[in-house]
């Protein structure tokens, strides 16, 4: 180390020098740098790109003008959604009944065979009426709608329609004090809320990102769509003449989706006025050009990535849930099963919000995955050992209305509850991982639950007053 050399600058020296140099520069040199990059990009692109004809480009623009128009944009969106749900509801009925018939036939035979081999009754019950029935329900209720809904949804995604949806909703989110990109993460939430929560990483501002995370749950995910579709089919459709039944059911599901979007906006607005105060930031949303959907990829994404993945997850939770319900239904204390005790204990709270104890019990058992709410509920209703074959939507209707006193209010409130209630365990864990805060994970879980109780309590009270 010779003392003659110039002293090595310390990092602090470098920073100080950088600050000094910045002072000397033109105040807006940063803007100028960005501007010169843009100018350079434009110059290079102009030299390299030659347009001839350009018919397609005009077509793209015209379509965009229509689907993102201030007047037609939102109605077109609602229309597209209605068609998707209508196709799903219309198409899923028959395969659903067929799968249910087949799987419950297996349960029937297997339990008889098992009993004839001298297996103790409780093993037969646990395995076949517990675990197997849980799985059979999940598969027959969820698989057909998913196999129709997911490919259709993926086509919309692949076409490039979702960014247009975001574009249409952008101004609403800004007005709610949230980030416009929240429209995109909300759209992701229709697929899976956990994925939607992860997608909020595209939002730079922590405040707006937190709003997007906390409200993502208010759009129904793919796990909850089958529940909504089933309820709409069983109750709403039945209230209409057969010719309009499936359209009415589809419209009901779209209605729930629209309520979900409205609640998302309202809660975002409330959050940005209270605990997450601030102004909405500005951003540029890119509308990618329309692509011809790739059939192979659509089938892969929708059937392997989504259908199989969600079904697998549902089965993993349905099997233990089925077993748990069987145990609760078959262990008796004081003349009634544990399930009955639990349902009775929850009943007053359930009645208050237009539901009943069994439904609340089902929601408690189904916390790990929303997919199994309806199967759980039906298993508790059908109780221990009573072999009620629910092989079609009309049989389901008979069971719920005639035997358990459901009304249209029950169905409507159940749809609302399932739209608004707490996110599934996976989503709650994801919220924790993304925020690394127990506080926000708790808020993310309890705020929707509280809202679900308040809203269903209000609708139930209004109906009671009117009746």
């Amino acid at each position, binding site marked *: 180390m010779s003392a003659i050399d110039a002293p*090595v*600058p*310390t*990092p*602090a*020296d*470098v*920073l100080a*020098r*950088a600050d000094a*140099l*910045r002072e*000397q*520069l*033109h105040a807006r*040199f*940063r803007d*100028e*740098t*960005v501007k*010169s*990059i*843009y100018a*350079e*990009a*434009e110059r*290079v*692109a*102009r*030299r*390299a*790109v*030659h*347009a*001839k*004809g*350009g*018919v*397609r*480009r005009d077509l*793209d623009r015209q379509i965009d003008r229509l689907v993102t128009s201030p007047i037609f944009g939102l109605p077109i969106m609602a229309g597209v959604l209605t068609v998707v749900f209508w196709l799903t509801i219309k198409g899923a009925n028959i395969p659903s009944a067929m799968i249910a018939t087949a799987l419950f036939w297996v349960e029937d035979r297997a339990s008889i065979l098992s009993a004839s081999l001298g297996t103790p009754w409780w093993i037969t019950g646990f395995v076949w009426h517990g675990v197997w029935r849980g799985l059979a329900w999940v598969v027959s209720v969820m698989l057909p709608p998913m196999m129709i809904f997911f490919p259709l949804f993926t086509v919309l995604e692949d076409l490039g329609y979702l960014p247009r949806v975001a574009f249409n909703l952008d101004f609403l989110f800004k007005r709610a004090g949230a980030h416009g990109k929240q429209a995109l993460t909300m759209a992701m939430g229709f697929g899976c809320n956990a994925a939607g929560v992860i997608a909020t*990483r*595209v939002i*730079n501002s922590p405040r707006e990102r937190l709003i997007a995370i906390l409200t993502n749950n208010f759009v129904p995910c793919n796990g909850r769509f089958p529940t909504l579709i089933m309820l709409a089919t069983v109750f709403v459709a039945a209230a209409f003449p057969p010719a309009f039944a499936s359209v009415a059911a589809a419209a009901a599901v779209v209605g729930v989706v629209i309520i979900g979007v409205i609640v998302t906006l309202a809660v975002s607005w409330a959050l940005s006025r209270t605990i997450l105060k601030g102004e909405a930031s500005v951003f540029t949303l*890119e509308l*990618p*050009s329309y*692509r011809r959907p*790739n059939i192979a990829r659509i089938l892969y994404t929708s059937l392997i990535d989504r259908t199989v993945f969600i079904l697998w997850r549902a089965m993993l939770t349905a099997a233990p849930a089925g077993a748990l319900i069987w145990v609760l239904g078959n262990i008796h204390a004081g003349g009634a099963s544990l399930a009955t005790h639990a349902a009775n204990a929850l009943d007053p709270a359930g009645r208050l919000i237009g539901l009943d104890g069994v439904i609340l019990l089902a929601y408690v058992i189904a916390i790990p995955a929303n997919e199994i709410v309806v199967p759980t509920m039906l298993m508790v209703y059908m109780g221990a050992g009573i072999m009620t074959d629910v092989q079609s939507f009309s049989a389901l209707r008979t069971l719920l209305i005639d035997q358990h006193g459901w009304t249209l209010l029950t169905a409507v409130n159940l749809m609302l509850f399932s739209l608004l209630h707490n996110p599934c365990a996976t989503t709650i864990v994801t919220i924790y*991982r*993304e925020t*690394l805060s127990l506080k926000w994970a708790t808020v993310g879980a309890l705020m929707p639950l509280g809202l679900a109780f308040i809203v269903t309590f209000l609708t139930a009270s209004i109906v009671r007053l009117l009746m």
Partner: protein
Amino acid sequence: MPHNCDACPAHAQHARIGGGIEGYERIVAVAGNPNTGKSTLFNALTGLKQHTGNWPGKTMTRAEGWFEFRGARYKLVDLPGAYSLLSGSQDEEIARDFILFGRPDCTIVVVDATALERNLNLVLQVLEITDRVVVAVNLMDEARRKGLEIDTRTLSRDLGVPAVPITARTGEGVRALLEAMDGVVSEAVHTQPLRVQGTPAFQLAVAELAPLIEAAAPGVPNARWLAIRLLDGDAAVQGALLSGDLARLVARQQGPVEKFSRKIAVEGAL
């Protein structure tokens, strides 16, 4: 029945894990705007030879894949889609840090042929950081359908790095892309990246600052770019310089993919 292991594409990789063949592999990053077919290209090149982990210090997924070309092994790293490298979003920061500190042997920037102008903004910003760049002009089939002709020769000349027309979906042009990549990696192709010249005062400031950075933090990958960021007041770069973490950032980006770790997620980026 004889096993024909040598013909199996998985063989080379297994052999390497066993340590049989020399371990060196070339690292290639794939960057690009969202929706440009970046992942399609990544999948087309690596097939099933993929591996996912986390970006250093982030909870975000990082996909890596392997392939061979002309007897050399390549590790391909799929960077998050980004429109620019200047804003602070997590995706852009990850892409920027890897190109800068991960020191890939080549960065393939995938651009959308139907929206070249917008995509070139990212290309120009990548060229600020590294001169080992190949531009993959993707979605050529769509551009043709839209009646757009892309003169990739002029584009190459203007940008000073190879620009190759491809259609990742069908595999068209991918071989030419790999040849260009090989040329850049082996330095058979000499690149002269187009660098956006700021105002004279700005250039003088950069020219003064860059040597200071090199002296203060020997071995940093691109002092010129760091100088620009410091003049811009980039807090991440300032912090890294102050804490002497620039070197650690380099080591970390070049290290193997880390498994998800809560501790890392809590600590954040640095």
